[in-house]
């Protein structure tokens, strides 16, 4: 955490009108990032640009490294973090794809870097708009992954990311996700915390075996072969699996400061719901309107969202889905020869429980394709028909919001 007396103080309003990138930039400013190493890319550009402007205007006392690629950006973060600095960066889509090798390094080296990932489609075809294919690409990289549905949540998750990742029992890098454009470029009300409250909340960066501790020379990023690799991966993964305890503590503390409550799994009207849609990102807010609309018409529908995408809150998800008759998982990424990731994760959560809802998967909204309240109402109605029929109508996996003949796969006519 930087303490320069020359740092100018920025007065924030109680309610600010920020888009998601501004939320990120302000959260990074308040978190007291020592080193930002970045290579801006749409739609996350304004996170870095906004942070750089605050830096140039004297509100930030840290280092900004503008590097030659996303691979170098994350490498810079890993090096600075191992040296003992609080570090962050932002990227999206192709940038994330180029960065992915170093994401695994960051996780394996236990450097608590924070990555503001503004979710965007992966080419080809080249597309700058939002979907979750880059988020899904990180799913096994060993990063904790937090989801948000609007700029205020993006602000909250970016702040919580530091506190979670740097915790002594976690020491893992954390991604703060938000939807490209729908969140990152849509100005909305954000109620920020004061600089002092954030400074107390996140606290000082705690160094662990840092490279710049000359009393104890240490090598980071070592090579292990079959002799030690598995033990180190076990330790890393165990930290990940136990992180929900810390995440819950951090969310509880954050609620006291902000009045905003976050959970591993968020739910909307699922208590008596027959049909539950599971989705991520801004779609969750659109779907809430659809739920309200259908409930007026008397259909018992509900909504569920994994706030924490990784580690996947498998137990909490299973507990919440014991009483419904159908679960429709909305996956905003082309699954590449399987069912979508959210479907796989939720199916795994339910497979050994007593609940036997009809499980189906809908691919939607790729490359920023609009998903409307009407689209979601249709998905609920289709699921309602399937519940009445007692079986799926033709396939587990189908594509929605796409032009052309119907696309359905995996009939499982066992």
């Amino acid at each position, binding site marked *: 955490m930087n303490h320069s007396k020359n740092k100018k103080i920025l007065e924030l309003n109680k309610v600010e009108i920020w888009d998601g990138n501004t939320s990120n930039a302000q959260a990074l400013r308040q978190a007291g990032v020592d080193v930002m190493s970045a290579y801006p890319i749409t739609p996350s550009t304004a996170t870095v640009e906004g942070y750089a402007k605050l830096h140039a205007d004297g509100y930030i006392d840290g280092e900004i490294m503008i590097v030659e690629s996303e691979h170098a950006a994350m490498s810079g973060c890993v090096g600075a973090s191992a040296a003992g600095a609080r570090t962050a960066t932002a990227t999206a889509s192709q940038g994330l794809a180029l960065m992915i090798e170093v994401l695994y390094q960051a996780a394996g080296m236990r450097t608590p870097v924070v990555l503001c990932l503004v979710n965007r489609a992966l080419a080809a075809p080249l597309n700058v708009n939002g979907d979750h294919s880059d988020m899904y690409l990180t799913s096994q990289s060993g990063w904790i992954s937090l989801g948000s549905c609007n700029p205020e949540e993006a602000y909250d998750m970016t702040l919580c990311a530091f506190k979670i990742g740097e915790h002594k029992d976690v020491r893992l890098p954390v991604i703060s996700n938000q939807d490209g454009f729908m969140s990152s470029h849509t100005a909305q009300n954000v109620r920020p915390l004061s600089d002092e409250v954030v400074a107390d909340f996140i606290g000082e960066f705690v160094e662990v*075996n840092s490279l710049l501790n000359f009393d*104890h*020379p240490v090598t980071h990023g*070592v090579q*292990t072969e079959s002799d030690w690799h598995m033990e180190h991966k076990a330790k890393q993964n165990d930290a990940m699996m136990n992180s929900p305890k810390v995440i819950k503590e951090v969310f509880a503390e954050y609620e006291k400061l902000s009045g905003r409550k976050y959970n591993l799994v968020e739910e909307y009207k699922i208590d008596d719901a027959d049909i539950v849609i599971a989705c991520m990102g801004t779609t969750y807010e659109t779907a809430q309107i659809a739920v309200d609309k259908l409930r007026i018409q008397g259909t018992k529908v509900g909504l569920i969202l994994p706030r924490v995408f990784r580690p996947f809150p498998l137990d909490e998800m299973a507990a919440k889905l014991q009483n419904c008759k159908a679960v429709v998982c909305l996956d905003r990424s082309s699954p590449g020869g399987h069912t979508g990731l959210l479907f796989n994760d939720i199916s795994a959560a339910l497979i050994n429980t007593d609940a036997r809802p009809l499980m189906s998967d809908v691919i939607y909204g790729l490359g920023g394709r609009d998903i409307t309240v009407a689209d979601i109402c249709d998905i609920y109605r289709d699921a309602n028909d399937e519940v009445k029929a007692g079986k799926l109508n033709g396939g587990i996996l189908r594509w929605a919001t796409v032009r052309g003949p119907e696309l359905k796969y995996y009939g499982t006519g066992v």
Partner: protein
Amino acid sequence: MAKIKTITQEQADIANSLYKDKEHFEKSIWDMGWDELVPSAACFSFDGKVDNHVAQTQPENRNYAETNSINKYVGDWRVVKPVWKVDLCIDCQNCWLYCPDTSIISRDKMMVGVDYDHCKGCGICSEVCPTNPKSLVMFNEQISNEVALTQWPVKTKKGDKV
């Protein structure tokens, strides 16, 4: 006739003591489970705190940690090895200076020998050796040093192609 020179027993002991397994750790990493490891596979160079005088402390007196690469044998990477002919050596220290793996052992500006546990056979020591014939010559790894010493190249004259 060249001055006959041999290494002392003391120097030989130093050479031998450097690269044996140390028992600094209360528990070897080989006896640890995943839960006992340091996060991030960080490897410490020394046990305990290092003071400013470590650079002036000879390796055999340093408190190397078990995870220090000095305890890692990489000699089997080698295809060719440098063999040292002590009576030709003028202790110029070129080989010690240029060796990229600190595998030339030297004490008080006198060469002691080659650390075959860490030498990877790059041949730089032989390349920079200024004597004629060279006092460090690269031989096939399979040839014993005793045999190699009997196959030493002869002195080259002015104009000879090396």
